[in-house]
């Protein structure tokens, strides 16, 4: 009974004592299920990999669906009267915003942005905003920046409207809230890369597809935070308003929505961040703008050029983040509206002045070329670190050893495990950490992977995720603990984490190949870089938030710093640490998939293949398997309280 031993012995060791009793009960129940079910399954389908009898081959139907869409796209009413309008509306609105930005000229756009930042967030942010926009011009990226900005404005507006409507429905009705929660959960764990293909098939390559994919990705935080804001509104205030005889609509407009302003702004902030991170991934389907520049630079192995297009994305992200965050904090301060009028007049004056001088486009002479020096640095680094470093060996050797000693055994082990034992392990883990519901979702998601016929590549991807998560957690917890200990270290770390988190992954995909060679190792390395900031941040915050009284008590009892950490801080910060694990897993999966572009193989490669060849069957099945894998991993690591946001 291999299943029983794996499911009882592995998870229990990691559990705190107080959970042991219910845990034993759960595991015993699982063991009984296994005792009945496993011999049956074993007798029926033999051992090892997912039984062929239990798979559904979707190649035929999906291929036909793809052909049908292409053949009917210019004649069927569904496309003529629905998708066509959606697509046209997106194109027209993006175009309108783009023309407006071009008409304002670089001086006008910079002035307007700085003045909005000034009014919303203060002088320092305003100066930063102005400098950031000028930097985009200096890097020679003005036009692509405006294209990205135009796409972003439309995508964020659409996400905010959609998210706010969903959030409103969920905030006002309990039933909608219950129905919507799993949908939003699912949308948030979806790696964006997985659903590019269906959008492309319907809308074709280009801006409409990119905007719609972005909306799917960016709307959930808005919906979630709107619902949260409406539900958490102060009961006392609501009662007072009701007692004054306000109707339901008046209550909503005058009390509940204004009270939820902070959450609404946080939702906007999150939506913007998610949309920006999508701007680059969407370049794979022809969104244009900065993302496209990064992607084209990647194709010619030009890290410097990729960086020149990546920096404006980072700058936009930092500026938008600071402005919306500051706006949220300054809510409620009494302000008059006259400065807005002055601000508007100044902005228009600058824009008109720019027009009159005839300087609408960013002058070519003012462009600073950073590509060449950057490339020299990257070449030097990769040249000297790749191999032959005395004593520790080159990065290529490490990558080889990591692949042979960690990734290979992990993959082979997972693929060797009988399929039912994988399901039982998933059930046990999910049940011990969450509820029977999360366990059921996790098991069903894992089973769906088998049914789709993607069992083997999914376990390959899973092995990469597990290896990357392990590395991320070791590094992330260590850094997080250090940052929680020293304010100065945390201050130094913050800008680094900002850059790691917002820099498009495509920029560092090539350097990781140059360091670690083609294969799964660079995919893992890229995933670690991407997921590390979130883990470090959550760990630091969690440790910092530990009740000072408890720490004081421990110190007065003479505990050493190590003892304080081990016996007080870490146990008390356990929810935050679990959240860090959960976030780490979700983020790592997203990048391991993109690792298909650097030889990661498995599901990621299938998605890239599907996109590149227009092969709906391969791409969509792999995409669905990724979604299931994401759901499973999320549920297995899901602490009782869900996180509000993804990626921050």
């Amino acid at each position: 009974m291999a299943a029983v031993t794996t499911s009882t012995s592995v998870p229990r060791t990691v559990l705190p004592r107080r959970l042991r009793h219910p845990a034993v009960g759960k595991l015993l129940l699982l063991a009984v299920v296994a005792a009945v079910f496993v011999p049956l399954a074993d007798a029926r389908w033999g051992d090892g990999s997912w039984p062929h009898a239990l798979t559904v081959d979707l190649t035929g139907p999906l291929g036909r669906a793809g052909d049908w869409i292409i053949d009917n796209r210019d004649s069927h009413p569904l496309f003529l009267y629905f998708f066509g309008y959606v697509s046209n509306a997106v194109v027209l609105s993006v175009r309108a915003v783009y023309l407006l930005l071009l008409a304002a000229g670089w001086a006008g756009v910079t002035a307007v942005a700085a003045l909005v930042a000034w009014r919303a967030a203060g002088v320092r942010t305003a100066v930063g905003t102005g400098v950031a926009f000028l930097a985009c011009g200096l890097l020679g990226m003005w036009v692509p920046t405006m294209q990205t900005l135009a796409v972003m404005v439309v995508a964020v507006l659409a996400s905010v409207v959609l998210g706010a409507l969903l959030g409103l429905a969920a905030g006002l009705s309990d039933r909608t809230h219950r129905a919507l929660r799993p949908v939003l959960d699912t949308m948030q764990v979806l790696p964006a890369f997985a659903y590019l293909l269906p959008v492309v098939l319907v809308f074709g390559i280009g801006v409409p597809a990119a905007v719609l994919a972005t909306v799917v990705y960016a709307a959930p935080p808005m919906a979630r935070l709107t619902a949260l804001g409406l539900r958490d509104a102060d009961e006392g205030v609501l009662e007072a308003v009701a007692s004054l005889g306000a109707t339901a609509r008046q209550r909503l407009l005058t009390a509940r929505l204004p009270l939820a302003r902070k959450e609404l702004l946080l939702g906007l902030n999150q939506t913007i961040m998610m949309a920006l991170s999508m701007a680059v991934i969407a370049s794979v389907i022809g969104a244009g703008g900065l993302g496209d520049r990064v992607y084209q630079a990647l194709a010619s192995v030009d890290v410097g050029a990729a960086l020149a297009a990546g920096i404006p994305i980072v700058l936009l992200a930092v500026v938008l983040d600071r402005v919306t965050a500051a706006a949220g904090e300054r809510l409620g301060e009494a302000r008059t509206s006259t400065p807005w009028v002055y601000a508007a007049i100044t902005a228009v004056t600058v824009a008109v002045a720019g027009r009159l001088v005839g300087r609408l486009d960013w002058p070519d002479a003012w462009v600073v070329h950073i590509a060449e020096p950057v490339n020299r640095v990257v070449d030097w680094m990769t040249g000297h670190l790749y191999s032959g470093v005395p004593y520790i060996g080159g990065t290529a050797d490490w990558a080889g050893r990591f692949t042979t000693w960690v990734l290979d055994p992990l993959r082979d082990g997972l693929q060797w495990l009988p399929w039912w034992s994988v399901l039982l392990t998933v059930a046990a883990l999910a049940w011990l950490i969450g509820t029977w519901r999360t366990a059921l979702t996790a098991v069903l998601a894992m089973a769906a992977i088998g049914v789709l016929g993607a069992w083997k590549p999914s376990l390959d991807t899973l092995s990469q995720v597990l290896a990357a998560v392990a590395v991320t957690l070791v590094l992330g917890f260590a850094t997080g603990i250090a940052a929680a200990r020293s304010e100065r270290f945390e201050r130094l770390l913050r800008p680094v984490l900002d850059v790691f988190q917002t820099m498009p992954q495509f920029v560092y995909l090539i350097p990781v190949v140059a360091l670690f060679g083609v294969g799964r190792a660079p995919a893992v390395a890229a995933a670690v870089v991407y997921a590390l900031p979130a883990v470090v941040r959550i760990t630091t915050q969690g440790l910092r938030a530990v009740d000072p009284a408890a720490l004081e008590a421990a110190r007065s009892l003479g505990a050493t710093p190590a003892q304080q950490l081990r016996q007080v801080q870490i146990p008390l910060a356990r929810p935050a640490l679990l959240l860090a694990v959960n976030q780490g897993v979700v983020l790592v999966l997203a990048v391991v998939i993109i690792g298909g572009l650097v030889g990661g193989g498995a599901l990621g490669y299938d998605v890239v293949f599907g996109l590149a060849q227009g092969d709906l069957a391969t791409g969509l099945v792999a995409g669905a398997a990724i979604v299931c894998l994401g759901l499973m991993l999320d549920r297995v690591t899901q602490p009782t309280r869900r996180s509000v946001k993804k990626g921050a």
Partner: protein
Amino acid sequence: MRVRTTSAVAGASALLLLTGCGAADMTKQASPFANARGARTVTLSVQSWVGAQSNVAVAQYLLEHEMGYRVDTVQVDEVPAWDALSQGRVDAILEDWGHPDQEKRYVEDKKTIAPGGSLGVTGHIGWYVPTYFARQHPDVTNWKNLDKYADRLRTPESGGKGQLLDGSPSYVTNDKALVNNLKLNYQVVFAGSEAAQITQMKQFAKERKPFLTYWYSPQWLFEKVPMTEVKLPAYQEGCDADAAKVACAYPHTPLRKYLNADFAKTGGEAAAFLKKFKWTTADQNEVSLMIANDKLTPEEAAKKWVEHHASTWRAWLPSA
């Protein structure tokens, strides 16, 4: 409730006004960035390899500096590019390596794409080893002897067999079937993108390590990393008809251009220019090498080429 309904109705009618009534044709959808501020624009699709970038760079430079157009470029993989072309999202593909299915669907049946003539460059796909390795072991250049070297070509990713490095999933490849049908002790490892493949090949070459790779000409990398082709069983017409049974080399393909059908008719000077655009492998490599190796921007590379080859491109201009 009423507020929401009203605003929904208002929104929907605004949408109708914006888009015009009646059917919305999904086959006529330009990029939102096209023709901004009254400029005449052409949208060109760029594929990920540098040769395709060179075609586009030179076409873009001439369209912008000699003919007064504004050119937008979009990076798209090959098959989706056909789809984008048929929808009018891009106006032209300048380098196509042969996609019979797409040709039949869009050129013959739907007539939404028009052939744009030949590019003048002939493409060839094959298996290559670095020349320094082929010099030491001349017999490696025949597929029959490849198994002898499988050990030396092993990597952590190839699982005990030799590694045959393949590139982007968008490229035409029969390599998995070939390895299988020729019964070679090799594992095809997909780099997932040409960029990753080139980076890896350069790292190998720097250390003068042996490697075996799927590669194609014309390609600028040959100037940096000289490579010798491995002889596969000779190509015969139709030997690659059944993808699972392929056991022969890749053909030599004259590369072709394709235009969106409407653009070909109404695109005026730009369309005429793109149809006439025709140069040689050497020309293309010259530009590619400047982009990929000297790290010039495509625009600078195109400018340099244009300055030195006036006699070639003058013939493409509509007045000539």
